[in-house]
């Protein structure tokens, strides 16, 4: 049952991602992107990362995707047509380059998987033997919070400052300029 669901989510994510890049209708592609993100969130659930899965939906669907659709809706029609023309020309010329890029990525990933299977780190096998693994019923939000405020405090604060900078920048840009 779980395996069926896993493959269903995987097919959903990959299939709709392929459609997103191949659709001519930009509006439909943007809405289809929601399905990709949803499938990804489902895959995160299978890694027992429920918090990450929900954050994915919250941040990407509730924020980023809506922003993208807004940008699409508010942009000029001619500008969009122009963009579509140039982008198709841009993509059609170096077809072999993008193919090379994707093949490279695939090779890196396959190499990673093979390497991982041959030399699994010691601490992982040890913990599996001791039974120190995360169970689906565990509450890992507390762990996340504690880790954020201890181990990963510096990155966490850096991100906060970065977001604050973006917020102040947005407020500054949208402010009415004083005429005098």
């Amino acid at each position, binding site marked *: 049952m779980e395996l069926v669901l896993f493959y269903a989510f995987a097919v959903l994510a990959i299939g709709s991602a392929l459609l997103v890049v191949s659709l001519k*209708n930009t*509006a*439909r592609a943007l*809405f289809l992107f*929601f399905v990709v993100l949803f499938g990804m969130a489902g895959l995160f659930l299978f890694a027992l990362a*429920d*918090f990450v899965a*929900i*954050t994915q*939906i*919250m941040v990407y*669907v*509730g*924020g980023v*995707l*809506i922003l993208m*659709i*807004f940008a699409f*809706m508010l942009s000029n029609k001619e500008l969009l047509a122009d963009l579509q023309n140039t982008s198709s020309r841009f993509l059609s010329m170096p077809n072999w380059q993008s193919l090379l890029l994707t093949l490279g990525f695939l090779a890196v990933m396959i190499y990673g998987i093979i390497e991982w299977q041959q030399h699994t780190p010691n601490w992982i096998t040890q913990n599996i033997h001791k039974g120190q693994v995360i169970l689906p019923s565990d*509450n*890992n*939000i507390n762990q996340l919070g504690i880790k954020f405020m201890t181990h990963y405090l510096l990155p966490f604060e850096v991100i906060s400052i970065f977001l604050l900078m973006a917020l102040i920048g947005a407020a500054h840009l949208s402010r009415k300029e004083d005429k005098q």
Partner: protein
Amino acid sequence: MSSLFIHILTPVAIFLFIALFTLFAVYAERKIAGFVQDRLGPMETGKFGLLQTFADILKLLQKEFISPAAADRILFAVAPILIFVAVFVGFSVVPWAADFVPANTHTGLFFIMAVVSIDAIGILMAGWGSNNKYSLLGSIRAIAQMISYELPVGLSLIAAVMITQTLNLNEIALNQGIYSEQDLFFLGIWNVKDIGGILSWNVFQAPHLLVSYVIFFIASLAECNRAPFDIPEAESELIGGFHTEYGGIRFAFIFLAEYAMMFLVAMLGVVIFLGAWNSPLPNIGNVRLADWTTGLYWGIFWTLIKSLFIVAVQIWIRWTLPRFRADQLMVLCWKILIPVAFLCMAISGIWRITVMV
């Protein structure tokens, strides 16, 4: 096999409940509107007009599917389903009584916030798919409003979560009554673990949560696109807003989603701030009112009564207050609700480390 059966039965039960609730709420809405405006409301169909909403839904179900010629057919057809499913899924983690909850997860509250934000995509899809200027304007207004008001909702919920220390809605509910395993303090001083009742609700455990709840209530009205925050479907300016082009069963689903959303936010507010399924009656000496009125059936009863009361307040507000202008809406959100919600959050932190040690 039996677990699979339960997995199918629960959603069906929730769906039936939403459908029944919508029928009832539309009737209540009309009757309350009639009362507020000093008229009778529906009176012709059935005794006291009780069958009016049944007649309406029958009419909607019989209607033909019509898609406008210029509409994007796929987006137009998918949008109502997405809007409804987003709200419907939200019901899956809200507890009805002690340990009587469709899905008991550690991330319940966060999950609801996330799936409700999917609703916005559905509205945008409906507005764009209709290919109608009024629909598009309505949906853009709806999104601007929903995204802005998600912040006060989130911040007021964070203030409550800082006090409860868990995102699990079942545990949040449990820690507001006599079944709680930890000590509960009325206003932070008086241990009311055995007394229970209204004294152990979250809003009275930490009084600043009352302010938080008011913020949550106001912002949740905006999340449901209800008056006084109904500029997305302002009839006088935009015909019907994002659902102008919809008719028949598709319109029925959008309508169902709207009323389900009303009940969902009412229930969420009840679970987090107003004691969930716990009885409001405290134990007084030997008169064990709280003990007598807590249990599975009592729990469902109290959840329903409290939520329906909040829904009634929502309806009452709709027929009392005039609609906000767009700029007033944003001023209220960004200059009043969000700063106050931040203040509540800060007080929650101080309360946690000074009073609840």
